[in-house]
């Protein structure tokens, strides 16, 4: 074991190595490590935040869905009610119309009937007048006029509408 000047040389070498590592190796590597650590931490935080947001969105979706369902049920109910109303109204309108048509038909029928009656009366009168003329033209005896009267009667019965 012989110590010599190599010792001094080695001390200088060692000091240079320490200085180099301290100046050129350590700071960039540590900076990169810290930056990566921060990046990973940020990433994890962002993922957690996203997860929370997702959970909140899910809840919100549930609420909206529930609301939409209720609204749909309400709309269907309303529609049913409205449809019932429309049908009821239509029925009422139809009934009124029917009644009105019936009334007008009845009135017309009455008129026709009356007209026919009038005409019939006129005819009867004319016929009576005609018969009377004929009877007066021949003689005034009951037996002798019997056949004419009977003929008149049959005439009346056979054609009451003309």
């Amino acid at each position, binding site marked *: 074991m012989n110590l*010599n000047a190599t010792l001094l040389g080695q001390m200088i*070498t060692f*000091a240079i190595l320490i200085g180099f*590592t301290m100046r050129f190796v350590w700071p960039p590597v540590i900076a990169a490590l810290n930056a990566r650590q921060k990046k990973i931490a940020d990433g994890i935080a962002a993922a957690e935040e996203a997860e929370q947001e997702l959970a909140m969105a899910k809840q919100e979706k549930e609420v909206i869905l529930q609301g939409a369902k209720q609204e749909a049920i309400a709309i269907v109910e309303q529609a049913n009610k409205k449809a019932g109303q429309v049908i009821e109204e239509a029925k009422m309108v139809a009934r009124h119309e029917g009644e009105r048509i019936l009334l007008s038909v009845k009135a017309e029928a009455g008129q026709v009937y009356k007209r026919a009656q009038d005409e019939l009366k006129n005819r009867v009168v004319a016929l009576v007048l005609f018969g009377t003329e004929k009877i007066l033209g021949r003689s005034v005896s009951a037996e002798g006029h019997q056949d004419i009267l009977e003929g008149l009667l049959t005439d009346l019965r056979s054609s009451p509408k003309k």
Partner: protein
Amino acid sequence: MATGEGLDSTAYIKHHLQNLAVGEGFWVFNCDTLFFSIALGIFFCILFRLAASRATAGVPGKLQNFVEVMVEFADTQVKDTFHGKRDFIAPLALTVFCWIFLMNFMDLLPVDLLPRVASIMGLHHLKVVPTTDPNLTFAMSLTVFILIIACSFKAKGVSGFIKDFTCVPFGPKLLPFNVVLRIVEECAKPVSLALRLFGNLYAGELIFILIATLPWAVQWPLGAAWAIFHLLIITLQAFIFMMLTIVYLSLAHQGH
């Protein structure tokens, strides 16, 4: 095997434990130690600088990943022991660990490989593992020692440092005892640091050399077994040197 060339095994072992020295008296430079330690230091710097300059916060590549693992390893060790600003101590710990590990790793190269290459190139002695040279281990531990004292000064101030040195652990009345005790305590730190690393690696190297003197049939199983075990030792020694550096510096930082 160099034993076949007229050298007996004692000479072979001695030959392998000799540094490639240049100079006279104290001013001797162990060129092999200097060369390998500086080369490995440059390798470490280039590798880590390459990863550091391309470091991104995004998905890291394989090199960046490896460097990040090393950096985080050093940072965690420092964070667990040292409570304060880690701007200086953590890079120091990383440098200590990586450099010592790389130098220790040279021990796993075949003992005759690089010396043979060197002898072809005309160099007669070559010790490949810089950590088996006490000059290197003492250089590191003395640098750490200087840092300990500097850190102590910085944390406590001059008066605090003197007070810490004279009045601890027995109080101001037993000042001489305190001083003697503290000097021994402080000096034991670099000596133990240096000798532990040197001793472990020197012994490991010696066993590799001894295995290399055995007949070839028993060389490879013994060599393999020792190399596998040595993997643990070189990592552990690098780790221990780093941990103790951190511990000593944190002690200096906190005071007693």
